[in-house]
């Protein structure tokens, strides 16, 4: 159907990912297959629009108008060869890509962008993947007033009634291989929230997830069974171990969080040693068990 429509409307484009711009000079529709297509306004009469809405649903998401800088970023990231004659644009500060996602339909992209810009107190480039996912491009700056992504989540949750996840990429200085970097971050971002229920995950946090994910499923299961023995299905012990890791192997802290007596925590860890031969009070053992726990997910 799209091909047929394209014969009639030469400006038709399919909105797949961020490489397409969802501009306001287009009228957007969704097909039965949930594809989003756009036709330029100047190619549509009102008769056309009524006809098209008879078998397509109008797609009413309003994206903020792409800014110049956003356009430049797109070029840097998505175009394969440098554009002839144009001097290549480069960002002036180190920058990082921060992936965000929120539940569909909880907030309009325009509102989201307004709020983000209010938080950073300046224009912020956002590359949208769809109406609830994308990347914020954050330029590094010395700002004593800056706030954390955990705080941003809580502020926007109360202002916009939206629950957001952030995957915070590493800072970069040069723009070489940006396309690859962007792709790999997108890839990690799409997986990382299956492994954790934190709302903010940094690139550093994500490394163990990414590495574990590379291993094939059979091996992963085998590793977690071999290391964890019967504890593999013992949610209570696993929670205890995870808390112990979150508390940086600090016994007193863990006991406090779990409302356990320090001695009974000691006792449980000793029993884990008896059953598995592994003492997770030692760092290298803790690392192995931590990976085995990830492999289990």
């Amino acid at each position, binding site marked *: 159907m799209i091909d047929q429509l394209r014969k009639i409307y030469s400006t038709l484009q399919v909105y797949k990912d961020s490489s397409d711009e969802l501009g306001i000079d287009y009228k957007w529709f969704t097909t039965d297959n949930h594809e989003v297509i756009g036709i330029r306004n100047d190619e549509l009469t009102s008769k056309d629009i009524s006809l098209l809405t008879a078998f397509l649903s109008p797609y009413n998401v309003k994206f903020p108008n792409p800014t110049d800088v956003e356009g430049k970023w797109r070029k840097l990231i998505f175009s394969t060869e440098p554009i002839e004659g144009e001097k290549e644009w480069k960002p002036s500060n180190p920058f990082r890509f921060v992936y965000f996602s929120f539940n569909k339909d909880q907030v309009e992209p325009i509102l989201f962008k307004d709020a983000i810009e209010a938080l950073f107190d300046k224009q912020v480039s956002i590359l949208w993947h769809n109406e609830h996912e994308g990347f914020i491009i954050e330029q590094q700056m010395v700002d004593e007033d800056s706030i954390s992504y955990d705080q941003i989540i809580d*502020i926007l949750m109360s*202002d916009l009634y939206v629950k957001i996840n952030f995957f915070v990429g590493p800072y970069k200085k040069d723009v070489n291989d940006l396309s690859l970097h962007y792709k790999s971050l997108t890839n990690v971002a799409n997986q990382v929230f299956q492994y954790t229920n934190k709302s903010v995950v940094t690139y550093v946090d994500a490394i163990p997830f990414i590495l574990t994910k590379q291993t094939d499923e059979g091996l992963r299961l085998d590793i977690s069974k071999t290391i964890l023995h019967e504890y593999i299905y013992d949610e209570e012990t696993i929670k205890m171990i995870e808390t112990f890791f979150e508390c940086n192997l600090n016994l007193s802290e863990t006991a406090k969080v779990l*409302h356990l007596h320090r001695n009974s925590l000691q006792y449980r860890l000793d029993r884990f040693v008896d059953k598995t031969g592994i003492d997770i009070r030692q760092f290298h053992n803790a690392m192995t068990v931590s990976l085995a726990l990830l492999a289990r997910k």
Partner: protein
Amino acid sequence: MAELKLVNVKKVYDNKVVSVEDFNLEIRDKEFLVLVGPSGCGKSTTLRMIAGLEEISSGDLYIGDKRVNDVPPKDRNIAMVFQNYALYPHMDVYNNMAFGLKLRKFKKDEIKKRVDNAAKILGLENLLNRKPKALSGGQRQRVALGRAIVRDAEVFLMDEPLSNLDAKLRVQMRAEIQKLHSRLQTTTIYVTHDQTEAMTMATRLVVMKDGIIQQVGAPKEVYDEPDNVFVGGFIGSPAMNFLNGKLIGNYFIMDDVKLLVPDGRLKILKERGYDGKDIILGIRPEDINDEQVFLDFSPETKVNASVEVAELMGAEIILYSQVNNQSFVARIDSRFNITAGDTIDLAFDLSKAHFFDKETELRIK
């Protein structure tokens, strides 16, 4: 103003974790209801389902008479304050309070009316032009509350709003939030893992564990009559002591230690068929005494205990001791100089103690 009702609410996350189950609760109009329990017990999940930020897997949620499962959060007439609460760093106090309304395209004079009103309630009138940097910790927290107040919502939802504050400010803000509640009378659901906070703030509290409600009641009710071992141990600090033993005849027996069970309790225990059975004795640290009058008065509930640690806390001493190889904590007046290694007599006030089933850990009543 609004009542809320949760009926058989359940939440299962994508990863199949059941995080809240069998959640049935009616929240009264104007109530200050506190959800309390250890980390991971499902408090935030519950609150977020009420807010609409997290989908309800099954069950019904009503605000007023309306089932709101499918109503988007912004249309539920709620306002929220969270733990990592911060202000927009570059905006002054006025705009911090106004911004949420601006985003929602409220009219200018309506915004001004609401912000001025909130500022008056919170005593922020003279600080409206200040940036967050120029505010004290307490003032910032008040602005945070102001941002919720301007919503004019029917329900306030607060998720550990004080847990990032230092101890002194936390105590001060507790009082401030209570004052605010008694003035605005807005139905409030407040989440905390801190039992002291729960006890001091709640009109009613809901104790949760592993996604399941353990007990609902006024703070004193829950403190005096815990439904099970978990609630007894969680509410109160230092925690309730639990000692394993057997009911034989009129006595709670721990090997060679015998404690006489008072008549009323004994009658219930026998009626419920616990004679000769293993039971758990629960007794709060403050119901263990070392005063001579008590000791003389209760010859048959006396324990000779060896003191392992004695923490002097000013007017009282917290004693960590053992009886029959079971640890317990006592809280006594610090008139005498007690040190580790001492052996002393302590009287257990069994009229204030509770007995729990060994298997189900439910209070026998």
